């Protein structure tokens, strides 16, 4: 259940926020152990996670895992014909070295480049159940929180195909999902390596931005329909902006992603990040918008494009996204060089 993951994740973001606010530098990198604890699936389900830092031994198949919606999913044999229904899980699978087992993906897959060539069984609107049955998938990894239609997920399960539904409400949730996929495909060690590397990458950014001023940051998701969409309270993207050393301007609700222009003007962003830059939105357009000229960011010309995909896609490249975000918020920031994630074979 999303709410459960969110409750568990709260201590992490709390610690990070405190750490980032304090000026004690390296001491702020506290969350490492607790995050790894949250990341192991068994701990993610326990009401009070204790940190079992020993890697989970490779489960012998059949194995039963609990997915992010609380469904117990039994995987009878080590999966060799995997279908990924979200671009993020495609990236995780390839990152774990299981790319050759992935037999189909989504229309939106674009990374790694070879994933683009996979047969598509999912679009933004629908999942092709018939095709998934036809290619004899033995594991389907789907997106929760309505990313993939719940009806299609239920249908696949009725037909006897194990479906693992993933939904990461925050960064800790992404790490937990990597571990969950690792367990589901029999590669828990690779997953442990990946999450450790990702955590190190997050920690690097967190400590580099720890003592800095935190500009009030408006992260623009979309304005094309006239409604202004930005990050919701306690959302994944708000956490990313905080970690990157910004003070996110949020919608004031945990579920509503729309922000009234009045609220945005009162919040007075010092920095505007264009997550919709890939859709030809430019700083010049922002300056021309009625009512926006009063904002500090517009007057100071602090409007910068960012690569929305790596910042919002809950996969292994999130570290890259966080680094890009940190550099967009603090252009003079010096980040330690990062180990490549995932360690692609």
């Amino acid at each position, binding site marked *: 259940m999303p709410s459960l993951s969110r409750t568990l994740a709260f201590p992490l973001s709390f610690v990070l926020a405190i750490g980032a606010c304090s000026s004690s530098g390296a001491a702020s990198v506290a969350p490492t152990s607790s995050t790894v604890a949250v990341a192991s699936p068994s701990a993610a389900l326990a009401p009070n996670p204790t940190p079992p830092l020993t890697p989970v031994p490779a489960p012998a198949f059949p194995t039963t895992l609990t997915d992010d919606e609380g469904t117990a999913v039994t995987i009878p044999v080590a999966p060799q014909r995997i279908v990924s229904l979200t671009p993020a899980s495609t990236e995780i699978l390839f990152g774990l070295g299981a790319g050759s087992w992935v037999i189909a993906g989504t229309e939106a897959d674009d990374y790694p480049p070879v994933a683009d060539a996979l047969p598509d069984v999912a679009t933004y*609107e629908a999942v092709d159940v*018939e095709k998934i*049955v036809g290619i004899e998938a033995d594991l389907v990894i789907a997106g929760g929180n309505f990313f993939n*239609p719940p*009806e299609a997920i239920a249908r696949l399960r009725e*037909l006897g195909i194990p479906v693992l539904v993933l939904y990461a409400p925050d960064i800790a949730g992404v790490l937990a999902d990597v571990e969950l996929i690792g367990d589901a495909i029999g590669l828990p060690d690779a997953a442990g390596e990946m999450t450790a590397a990702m955590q190190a990458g997050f920690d690097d950014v967190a400590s580099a931005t720890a003592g800095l001023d935190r500009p009030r940051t408006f992260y623009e998701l979309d304005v094309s329909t006239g409604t202004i969409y930005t990050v919701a309270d306690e959302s994944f993207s708000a956490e990313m902006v905080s970690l990157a050393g910004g003070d996110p301007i949020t919608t004031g609700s945990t*579920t509503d992603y729309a922000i009234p222009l009045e609220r945005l003007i009162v919040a007075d962003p010092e920095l505007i990040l264009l997550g919709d830059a890939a859709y030809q939105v430019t700083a010049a357009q922002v300056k021309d918008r009625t009512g926006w000229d009063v904002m500090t960011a517009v007057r100071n010309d602090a409007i910068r494009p960012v690569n929305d995909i790596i910042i919002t896609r809950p996969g292994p490249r999130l570290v890259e996204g966080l680094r890009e975000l940190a550099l967009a918020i603090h252009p003079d920031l010096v980040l330690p060089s990062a180990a490549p994630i995932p360690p692609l074979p």
Partner: protein
Amino acid sequence: MTTHRETLRTARPRVGWFGGVRDRPILLGGLGLVALLVALVMGVGVGSVAIDPADTIAILGHRFLGLDIPQTWSPATETIVVELRMPRILTAMLVGSALAVAGATFQGLLRNPLADPYVLGTASGAALGAAIAVLIPVRLVIFQFGLIQGLAFIGALAAITVVYKLSRNSGLAPLTSLLLTGYAVGSLLAAGLAMAMYLSGAALRQIFTYLLGSFDAATWSRFLATLPIILLASVAILLRARSLNGLLLGEQAAAHLGIDVKRERRILLALASLVTAAAVAISGLIGFVGLVVPHVVRLLVGPSARLVLPLSMIGGAALLAYADIIARLAGGIPVGVVTAILGAPFFLFILRRARTGYEV
């Protein structure tokens, strides 16, 4: 003084060279049944996975006729044919026939050519029920239905019940009162739906999918849960064709024919609403079929409900079956789009061919 039967006969419009079939309703029905059979074979034969037609036929013979055929196909192929395509095409036919028979009944009852199965608030009621079901975080299964299907069914029936009860205490003529109450209640429910959609966040897409209508969720269990409701209620409507014919002539004429107008109207309204509710529960809101198929049938064979009701059922089933096949081949576009694209030009063509006065 013309008899009831003669009135119906003279009301039959001539439809150009289609006039040939108008006196041969049996031929028309037979053609419809053949079209349905072809649709059944096509519906099972085509899809996003290519399956050898020989395998398809062998699987069907093996599973449904009990023939002893050596298995040359993979279990996945059998699952696709038996568990995915069969219930889907059968559900499309069932829903098509349900909507068409309900539409014909509503048009006759309300003596309104623009009436369709959704006219008295059933659509808004079902949609609101489905939206609420999407927003409820619990996943329940009631009587083989999912929560969405269950609440859509209840919502549709609740809406029509409220409309009927409210319309009875009005000083207006019964039909006017019913239509206007239906419109008012429908608007209120639509506002509720808009509110639910506004609050739904990520679930919006699922509500939207329901509103567009689709057979993606068709399963054997849902089909079999809906089949008796639609079948029994449709047969009950067919058995009341005489009452419907009487009501078509107006309340006074019907009363002279010995029809208990209020009672028959209530029963037909209930039956048609039940059929509609069952159909929208499994398929979402699919427009056009219920409005246009009865008109096409009436233009071809005249207004007698004895012919219009069964032929509408066949026609509706065929239209929706072919529309779903095309929708699937076109990459899963909403089936309601296809029904309109297929049906509207054909309807216009038939309308232009109608020479003598045509009335519902």
